[in-house]
């Protein structure tokens, strides 16, 4: 904890001095499995500044999604605090917008109705919500698909729509949970580039979960590398590349070096887990 200077101000928190939007403080979470408590998260500390793109990189099964479910208020942490704008939001729902792994589009709603859903949940009248959704979809390159049903769209297009839906949630923090994991390699690259463009226009605060090193490096300002279960933060890395970025970044030696370093880190985390199971 930082010491606040004695300026006579009350309620001074790290967020006001440091522009910290979201902070996980020593988060511990266990689940009961076959009568045993399995510790999934083992003291996670991380933060996201306002307008920052932060990735969480970890081997599969490292409790990355659990982190999001805690943030979304679906579970409560056993220990620790989740601070949004300096307020503990553990167990509170609907304070962040969320883009799940599979698009989770509602098959009976058209694309624009899907995108308008979070607005409607907030009580925006359907007509207004739909017209907002329509213009957001057009900006996202989905013009002409507004009235289609989700299954008529390709996987990449569905994820675009899901991203627009998350954007329209009008929350300050967006949580993207491995949004491109189910896409083929080429579509995935295309979508990364698309997301980068969208984000550089909007500059929302983003927490991005992925298990792809390249994706994390390409997109984020900062990233956290997680260990295998019970999960801890192995390393925090500031990604030094300037914006706006494009695909050429992937060919730079510094990118390759960082990628190599992260690869080693993740590999050792995985081996450590393997050793524990033997």
């Amino acid at each position, binding site marked *: 904890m930082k010491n606040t200077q004695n300026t006579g101000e009350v309620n001074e928190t790290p967020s006001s001095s440091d522009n910290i939007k979201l902070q996980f403080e020593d988060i511990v979470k266990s689940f009961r499995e076959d009568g045993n408590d399995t510790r999934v998260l083992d003291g996670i500390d991380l933060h996201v500044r306002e307008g920052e793109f932060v990735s969480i990189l970890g081997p599969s099964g490292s409790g990355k999604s659990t982190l999001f479910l805690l943030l979304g208020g679906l579970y409560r942490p056993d220990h620790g605090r989740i601070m949004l704008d300096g307020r503990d939001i553990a167990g509170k729902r609907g304070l962040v917008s969320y883009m799940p792994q599979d698009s989770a589009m509602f098959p009976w709603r058209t694309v624009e109705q899907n995108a308008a859903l979070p607005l409607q949940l907030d009580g925006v009248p359907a007509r207004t919500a739909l017209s907002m959704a329509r213009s957001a979809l057009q900006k996202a390159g989905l013009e002409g698909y507004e009235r289609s*049903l989700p299954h008529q769209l390709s996987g990449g297009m569905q994820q675009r729509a899901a991203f627009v839906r998350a954007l329209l949630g009008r929350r300050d923090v967006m949580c993207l949970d491995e949004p491109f994991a189910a896409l083929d390699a080429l579509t995935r690259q295309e979508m990364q580039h698309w997301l980068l463009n969208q984000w550089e226009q909007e500059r929302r605060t983003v927490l991005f979960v992925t298990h792809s090193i390249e994706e994390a490096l390409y997109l984020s300002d900062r990233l956290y590398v997680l260990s295998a279960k019970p999960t801890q933060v192995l390393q925090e890395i500031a990604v030094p590349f300037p914006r706006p970025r494009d695909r050429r970044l992937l060919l730079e030696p510094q990118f390759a070096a960082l990628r190599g370093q992260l690869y080693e880190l993740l590999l050792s985390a995985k081996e450590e887990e393997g050793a524990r199971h033997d």
Partner: protein
Amino acid sequence: MYKWWPPALVITALVIGWQAAVDLSGVEKWHVPSPIDVAQESMKSYPQVLAHTWITVKVMLTGTAIGIAIGIAGALLLHISPFLNRAFYPLMILSQNIPIIVLSMLLIFWFGFGLTPKIVIIVLVCFFPVLVATMNGLAQADRAMRSYMLMTGASRLQLLLKLELPYSLPYLFAGVKIAATYSVMGAVIAEWVGGSQGIGKYMMMSYASFRMDRVFVSVIVIIVLSLLMVGLSRLLEWRFTRWKTHSLHAGTEGGSRP
């Protein structure tokens, strides 16, 4: 593609066989009428038959609509409240084990020979399949969509109306289709037991006066009514779950639903 000709062939063969059997064996017409006798009788008595049928149709549609509405409302209630679910579900099952004939007699004893007991009978046979199917559907809602809704801060009511209810529609309509076929039987039985009009009553009167040809005419009417009810529920199903059939054709939704 649905092949209509094998069943058509079987039915045609059956009718021809029936006609031949009656002609060759020389049984009396009042004993076993032939298909031609039945056809002739239906030409002769159709105004009367239609009048009875119309009464049955009105009772049936009213009862089915109320039954479906109660089934859906009940399912929503039992879905939201685990307590009500535990308290009432056994009773629901129990209600399905009372023989419908006995129930009809009691209801007619209590409510008289008007429309009420018949509608109540139809409601009782219709609500249950809809209730069970809808409850099943409500519990099936996709997990990813569900956690999306919860993360986004949906209230219980929003979760129900925007996710669980639409998601349960294909299940609900499976129940409606069963209810629709039950409702015809329910109406006929209720009319047997008590009542002065309706196709069930017409059938009983014909039987009592040894007019087997008329009994067969009523049977045909009942079959046609059942088919129409199923057709109507299919139409409704198509209207409300178009997205489902679309996605099935696109092959993005796997598997069939009960």
